């Protein structure tokens, strides 16, 4: 059958390939309003509409194929695009201006757009086609890998580039012993240099992925048609059940070759700067095209620019020629930040490198600058915080506003430097994905009167791609608003114009004991508003921490409080990714008797829970369903355990080292002090979680200076440090006071914590609070040590009330039938367990079954038809 363009009066555009770039082309055509001037026929090889290939790996973390689709439902119909799935094109006849699909269907075109993408390159080694060998490009590939991995123990990825590392992360996530084999001497040879590759390698190896660099794959060893191992060019061997080839991609240019279009020597359909091939009626865009600068771009952003350019030509709009693109990237690979931008390898003549490298923490930062200090490019591994502010500066020729070395040094070594938005010229590209400049963002604020980041995102599209520029975007927007005299909203949320600290004062002074009253009297939302997920828990926490003063019930399951708390507080347990909960009993100071350890073991065994020792010196039990929580806790409470408050914004643990009782270096009893502090501050509701530790001497084995309040023993008593933090933005705590006796120490901590609770913002840890608050550490010392505001007696009284009022939330809950009623999975079927919470085995324990959650069908299919659970009503 032949459809001739003559049967319709509109010219026909045929799009071959419906991947990411093809979809963008359709979107751009629709946006330009030109869609109805053409008949548009889309011939797609894959069995589904275009999906987000960049986010492909998220399939393994539970996103279904449907979630990955790029178009909203009905997109093609709405614009009259005729999409034919599973219809690969087999040939093109340029004289007749027709294309023919593999099934023999012929379609005529006036304009042909090729967007066929690329295919994974598989090196021609023996055994490459054995069962157990895969590539990593489509949803079908991932489905096949997932199914095969279920019976495999070891997996190897050939290729240590961007995709290879993503694939390795996926194999690791599937529970396989994972190897990466890279021919080049380092990982990600295209993006990072030797130093960066080394930092990346160390961090990735620490995660348990085995990295082999500088070796080529010789053969895949095959037994009974299945992959069993690999041999390498250096003579070594590896036993493996599963191999993923990720050794680069090649443009899919066969169709173009067959019909005589010009292709590059090393592949790619040659196009001019308007994406036109050697035939003026044929365009090529995306990964199949060879751009005028002689490159084939394997990233999605340049493809999007090409798609835009062709759509503009079809719409007769002025079109920006595509002459090449920036290859800057920022990625999170296996949890490690990797960014490279501009002239990352210093190929510009006369360029100089400024390098900071810390192999212990896997951080590597290199900036490439000109002799007079203008930024050319750079590589950041392990900490890519600065990427969004540095990338736009690269190549602008403007000298850096601060010395380059201050930009690579870690915070804490001298004054930490971060670039404000004023350092950027207006033509600097802020959002790389959508090619939006700082000037465009500013004019969105000044000319289109956008006042929030979401509005600017909508208006300019900036920040709607990979999202890496959002932080910079919000600084520019705030700076611009402030510059134009607009009052920047410091309110907690849309419901309140006050900060958390202001609300705390209002609640305290006016003795307001409910969120509803506070909202009605002090909110800015219309009458009858519900409040929101930000102010409800924040106000709930303020009321809970002032409960004795307000004569309100401190129990977080009571009265209105019940409706304010996040689900974790609501069920006194921590919600996990599959809807199950974790149980964390308090183990003060990390000290526990053998009897209690046995009880934890028995409870975990009897309820089939996963157990893990946390970094906070206690034991987490994972995988409990809502209805198991009371049963588990009644056993724990009977054995003398109490809630560990792992679910609340409150004190977590006070870690301790062994201390003077056993340790030959110890000068004070750190364990006794840690237990005392943990019992004193347990259950204290605060703006964010609080962590603490006590070390028995200056060797600091408990890492107290990484804590919100840390105590280190001296021969004369204790030193108190405050404002420390671990994690992503580590900060060593600052010394607040030295050589305190027990009583002085406790009094000072009481004051410090209450002052923090009173003045900090929502979700502001002590470390950021200490840096934000006017006057910093000196001011805090003045207030809590020298009582400069005369409030210390108040602060101490507040803490005394907290201590006197403390009750174990779990014991109280178990004793109250009213509170117990909420611990059911289904209100209409008490006693029926939630069928969506299931587990699969891993290393002799359980882990969440996420496959079951992928789609509703998965869940229904897994339901046992004979199961009479629904009859209980």
């Amino acid at each position, binding site marked *: 059958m032949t459809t001739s363009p003559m049967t319709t009066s509109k010219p026909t555009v045929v799009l071959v390939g419906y991947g990411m770039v093809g979809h963008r082309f359709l979107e751009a055509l629709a946006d330009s309003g030109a869609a109805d001037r053409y008949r548009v026929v889309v011939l797609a090889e894959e069995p589904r509409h275009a999906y987000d290939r960049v986010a492909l790996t998220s399939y393994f973390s*539970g*996103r*279904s194929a449907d*979630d990955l689709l790029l178009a*909203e439902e009905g997109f093609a119909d709405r614009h009259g695009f005729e999409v034919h799935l599973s219809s690969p094109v087999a040939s093109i006849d340029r004289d007749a201006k027709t294309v023919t699909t593999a099934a023999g269907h012929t379609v005529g075109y006036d304009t042909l757009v090729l967007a066929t993408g690329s295919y994974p390159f598989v090196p021609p080694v023996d055994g490459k086609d054995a069962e157990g060998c895969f590539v990593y490009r489509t949803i079908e590939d991932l489905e096949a890998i997932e199914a095969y991995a279920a019976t495999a123990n070891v997996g190897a990825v050939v290729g240590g580039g961007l995709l290879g590392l993503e694939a390795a992360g996926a194999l690791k996530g599937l529970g396989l012993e994972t190897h990466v084999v890279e021919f080049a001497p380092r990982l990600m040879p295209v993006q990072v240099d030797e130093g960066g590759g080394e930092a990346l390698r160390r961090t990735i190896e620490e995660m348990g992925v085995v990295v082999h660099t500088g070796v080529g794959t010789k053969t895949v060893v095959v037994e009974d048609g299945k992959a069993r191992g690999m041999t390498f060019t250096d003579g070594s061997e590896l036993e493996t059940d599963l191999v993923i080839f990720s050794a680069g991609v090649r443009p899919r240019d066969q169709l173009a070759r067959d019909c005589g279009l010009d292709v590059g020597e090393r592949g790619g359909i040659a196009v001019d700067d308007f994406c036109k091939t050697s035939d003026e009626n044929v365009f090529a865009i995306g990964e199949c095209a060879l751009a005028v600068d002689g490159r084939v771009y394997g990233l999605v952003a340049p493809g999007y620019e090409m798609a835009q350019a062709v759509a503009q030509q079809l719409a007769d709009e002025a079109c920006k020629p595509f002459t090449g693109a920036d290859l800057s990237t920022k990625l999170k690979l296996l949890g490690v930040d990797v960014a490279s931008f501009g002239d990352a390898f210093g190929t510009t003549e006369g360029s100089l490198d400024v390098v900071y490298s810390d192999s212990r923490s896997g951080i590597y930062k290199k900036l490439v600058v000109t002799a007079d200090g203008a930024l050319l490019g750079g590589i950041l591994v392990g900490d890519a915080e600065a990427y969004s502010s540095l990338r736009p500066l690269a190549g602008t020729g403007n000298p850096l506003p601060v010395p380059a070395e201050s930009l690579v040094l870690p915070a804490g070594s001298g004054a930490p430097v971060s670039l404000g938005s004023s350092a950027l010229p207006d033509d600097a590209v802020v959002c790389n994905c959508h090619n939006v400049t700082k000037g465009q963002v500013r004019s969105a604020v000044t000319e289109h009167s956008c006042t929030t980041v979401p509005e600017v995102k909508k208006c300019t599209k900036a920040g709607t791609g990979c999202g890496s520029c959002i932080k910079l975007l919000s600084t520019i927007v705030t700076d611009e608003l402030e510059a134009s005299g607009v009052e920047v909203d410091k309110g907690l949320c*849309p419901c309140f114009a006050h900060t958390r600290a202001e609300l705390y004062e209002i609640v305290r002074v006016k003795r307001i004991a409910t969120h*509803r009253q506070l909202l009605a009297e002090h909110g800015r*939302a*219309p009458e*009858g*508003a*519900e*409040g*929101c*997920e930000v102010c*409800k*828990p924040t106000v709930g926490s303020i009321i809970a921490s002032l409960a004795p003063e307000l004569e309100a019930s401190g129990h977080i399951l009571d009265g209105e409080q*019940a*409706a*304010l708390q*996040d*689900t*974790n507080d*609501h*069920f006194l347990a921590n*919600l996990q*990714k*599959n*809807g199950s909960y974790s149980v964390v009993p308090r183990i003060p100071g990390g000290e526990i008797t053998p009897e209690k350890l046995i009880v934890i073991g028995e409870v975990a065994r009897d309820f089939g829970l996963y157990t893990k020792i946390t970094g906070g010196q206690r034991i987490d039990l994972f995988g409990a369903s809502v209805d198991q929580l009371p049963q588990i806790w009644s056993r724990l409470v009977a054995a003398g355990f109490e809630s560990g408050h792992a679910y609340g914004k409150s004190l977590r643990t006070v870690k301790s080292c062994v201390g003077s009782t056993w340790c030959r270096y110890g000068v004070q009893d750190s364990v006794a002090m840690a237990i005392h502090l943990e019992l004193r501050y347990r259950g204290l509701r605060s703006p964010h979680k609080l962590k603490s530790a006590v070390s028995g001497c200056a060797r600091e084995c408990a890492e107290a200076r990484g804590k919100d309040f840390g105590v280190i023993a001296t021969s004369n008593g204790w030193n108190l440090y405050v404002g420390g933090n671990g994690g992503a933005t580590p900060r060593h705590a600052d010394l607040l006071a030295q050589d305190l006796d027990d009583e002085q120490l406790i009094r000072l901590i009481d004051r410090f914590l209450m002052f923090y609770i009173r003045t900090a913002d929502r979700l502001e840890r002590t470390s950021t609070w200490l840096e934000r608050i006017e006057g910093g550490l000196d001011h805090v010392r003045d207030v809590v040590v020298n009582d400069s505001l005369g409030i210390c007696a108040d602060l101490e009284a507040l803490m005394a009330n907290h201590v006197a009022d403390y009750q174990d939330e779990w014991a109280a809950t178990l004793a109250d039938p009213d509170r117990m009623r909420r611990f059911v*999975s*289904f*209100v*209409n*079927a008490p006693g*029926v367990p*939630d*069928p*969506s919470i299931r587990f699969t085995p891993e290393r002799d324990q359980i882990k969440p079954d*996420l496959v079951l*959650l*992928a*789609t*509703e069908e998965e*869940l*229904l299919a897994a*339901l046992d038809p004979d199961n009479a*659970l*629904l009859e209980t*009503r």
Partner: protein
Amino acid sequence: MTTVATTTRVELLTGRSWTTVCDWERLVPGRGVAVLLPDGTQAAVFRDHADRLYAVANRDPFTGAYVLSRGLVGSTADGRVYVASPLLKQRFDLATGECLDDETVRIPVHTARLGDV
């Protein structure tokens, strides 16, 4: 018996019949409950402070977990009442199922009513 105290019950339309959920008084304003439907799927039922009743699917489309009933209820400046997922905090309009943070996502909405017994 001659005098029967009437309680109001919450019911959900499932197919062509109504499934009983629970007593109206069991619902706490601003919070939800999960309901197991006869076909094995799950719904989340909410009551807001104006005593309006809502029912949507319990599955959070961003994570796949059946947890929306455990989210917090809120309202926007223009009065749309929503639930925020307890996992990654995306908000869903309880009346329309629309995700307020991502226009391309929408969750199913169920028809619910109050019936006297």
